[in-house]
């Protein structure tokens, strides 16, 4: 197992009180596996990603019962040790290629800097690696591009550069936070295909964070669905899409516009909005928006097994419901 996270909690102090952005989140990623973390805005998926890389704001408090990368304990790791991992064996692709690149430096400088920081190689070796990777991500005339600045490139090309940069030090795990949402659909498809291909050929583990269920269905091996700071369902992709258990997962899948819905007729939607995480919530977080909610949902709901390698945080998942109910306090 490449990455193993158990009971991750992140608390961010705000003016209104402590914000519990991530609550008891557990998941793991193996080599060559793609894990998708799905959820709407404000459900804690980006904070989860940032906490893996030690990039949380200074005021945030992170705790976990277990957090290992390739067997190394990440909880007790010093800043220096995290820095040696980050960009090296563990790298990240951010959402906005506009802001992820430094506008004042050439692409060559930015690509080679990562390599020089971790590999202590000479600049020529770094340059060669940069050219090789730019070609791998489908950029023509790569050697000439090294002298260019980010503003000279289109959004799609910039995101290719960001991907190349993430690959400079041959990482084992890539965390990609909505890497294609800022791009056109045609470019999105090209880049996702490229990422999947690179991942397979290099045996990378990947955590893809997104709100796009269509995208998830195309690339995920395993899916974690988050809602209001909690994991509410975790299953292999095939199982999740064929047999979604949590009412939120089902409602989310139902509200994606799809040719199977009758045209110009109302789409299924979820009433209300994602709750604020500033107050600590008791019981099921989805309760207020759920069509099946009842009094029993007011107590804390554990994640329970609802199938092979499939867990859901709900007491109303059909056959499993009586069992789960009896275990609840």
């Amino acid at each position, binding site marked *: 197992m490449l990455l193993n996270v158990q009971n991750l909690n992140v608390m961010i102090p705000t003016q209104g009180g402590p914000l519990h952005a991530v609550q008891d989140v557990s998941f793991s990623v193996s080599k060559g596996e793609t894990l998708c973390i799905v959820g709407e805005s404000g459900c804690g998926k980006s904070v989860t990603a940032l906490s893996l890389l030690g990039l949380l704001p200074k005021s945030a408090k992170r705790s976990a019962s277990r957090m290992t990368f390739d067997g190394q304990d990440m909880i007790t790791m010093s800043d220096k040790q995290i820095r040696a991992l980050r960009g090296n064996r563990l790298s990240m692709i951010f959402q906005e290629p506009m802001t992820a690149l430094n506008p004042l430096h050439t692409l060559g400088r930015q690509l080679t800097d990562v390599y020089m920081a971790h590999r202590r190689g000479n600049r020529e070796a770094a340059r060669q690696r940069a050219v090789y990777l730019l070609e791998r991500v489908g950029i023509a005339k790569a050697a000439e591009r090294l002298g260019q600045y980010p503003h000279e490139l289109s*959004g799609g090309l910039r995101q290719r550069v960001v991907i190349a940069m993430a690959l400079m030090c041959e990482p084992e795990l890539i965390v990609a936070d909505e890497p294609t949402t800022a791009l056109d*659909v045609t470019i999105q498809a090209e880049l996702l295909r490229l990422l999947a291909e690179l991942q397979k050929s290099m045996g990378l583990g990947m955590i893809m964070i997104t*709100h796009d269920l*269509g995208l998830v269905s*195309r690339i995920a091996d395993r899916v974690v669905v988050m809602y209001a700071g909690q994991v509410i369902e975790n299953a292999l992709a095939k199982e999740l*899409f064929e047999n979604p258990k949590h009412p939120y997962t089902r409602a989310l899948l139902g509200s994606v*516009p799809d*040719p199977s819905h009758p045209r110009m007729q*109302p789409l299924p939607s979820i009433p209300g909005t994602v709750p604020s995480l500033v107050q600590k919530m008791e019981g099921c977080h989805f309760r207020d928006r759920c069509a099946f909610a009842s009094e029993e949902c007011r107590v804390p709901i554990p994640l329970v097994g609802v199938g092979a390698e499939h867990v859901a945080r709900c007491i109303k998942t059909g056959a499993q419901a009586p069992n789960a109910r009896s275990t609840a306090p």
Partner: protein
Amino acid sequence: MSKDAILSLSNVTHDFGGRRVITGRSPTIRAVEDVSFDVRKGDILGIVGESGSGKTTLAKIMLGLLPPTQGEVLLDGTPIIEMSRKRIAERIQFIFQDPYSSLNPRQSVGQIVGYPLYLRGQENAAERDRKARELLDIVGLSSRFFDAYPSQMSGGQRQRVAIARALITRPDLLICDEPTSALDVSVQSQVLNLLLELREEFGLTYVMVSHNMAVIQHMTTRVAVMFLGRIVEMDTSEKVFGTPQHPYTRLLLNSTLSVNQGAGVPDLNVDAEARHAMRDHPSYVSQRV
């Protein structure tokens, strides 16, 4: 121009640049090229295309915010550039993509929604407030939001405020530029459902600009596909999505990632040559229907 056309565009072209600068003239970029179509009463006309294809420029031209370099836009048969902003606003309103920046953070919801009436200057304050409350109710926000500020509201609620503001002068045509792309999926369907309901209730006509093919397929009666400033295909929604004629339309449809577990990411294989071929491919514009 057909009889029931609200808005009629003929051979509209728009160039950016070409201004006088120290070294001569800045280079011109043709954002919209030779676009002609009618927006008819009851239509939901979808405009799709990649970023930079001229969708938003076209929307601005339709609103009379941007005079076209060539060609003409007629609103009820009158050239839109000869009409005052007020007269245009009586007929056409606009919903922007980002409900976080389209609402004034210093105005209360009631002020925001009632502001178009204030500008028109026909009602007194009490009447404006009454109408604003009524509109808030229609878009599904209770009137307890009347004194709230945009910062206290979620994205979906803000977009409802923007819709209420757009409808308070009872326009006939609503131009929506990516109305749901800043919203979550679960909220997106709430807003799309609301737009469909309001269309029934007020007999509205919509122009919807979007890059989300699934939304356009669900919502529209007719579709115009834009590529490099030109309309490369235009027909009824059924035809465009059922039997796409232009290679660019097919590319857009193929690259849409619908929920389909195990299908993988499609291999589009578009190189520069394929794009050149698409650019030179004749367009399919059907003016019937």
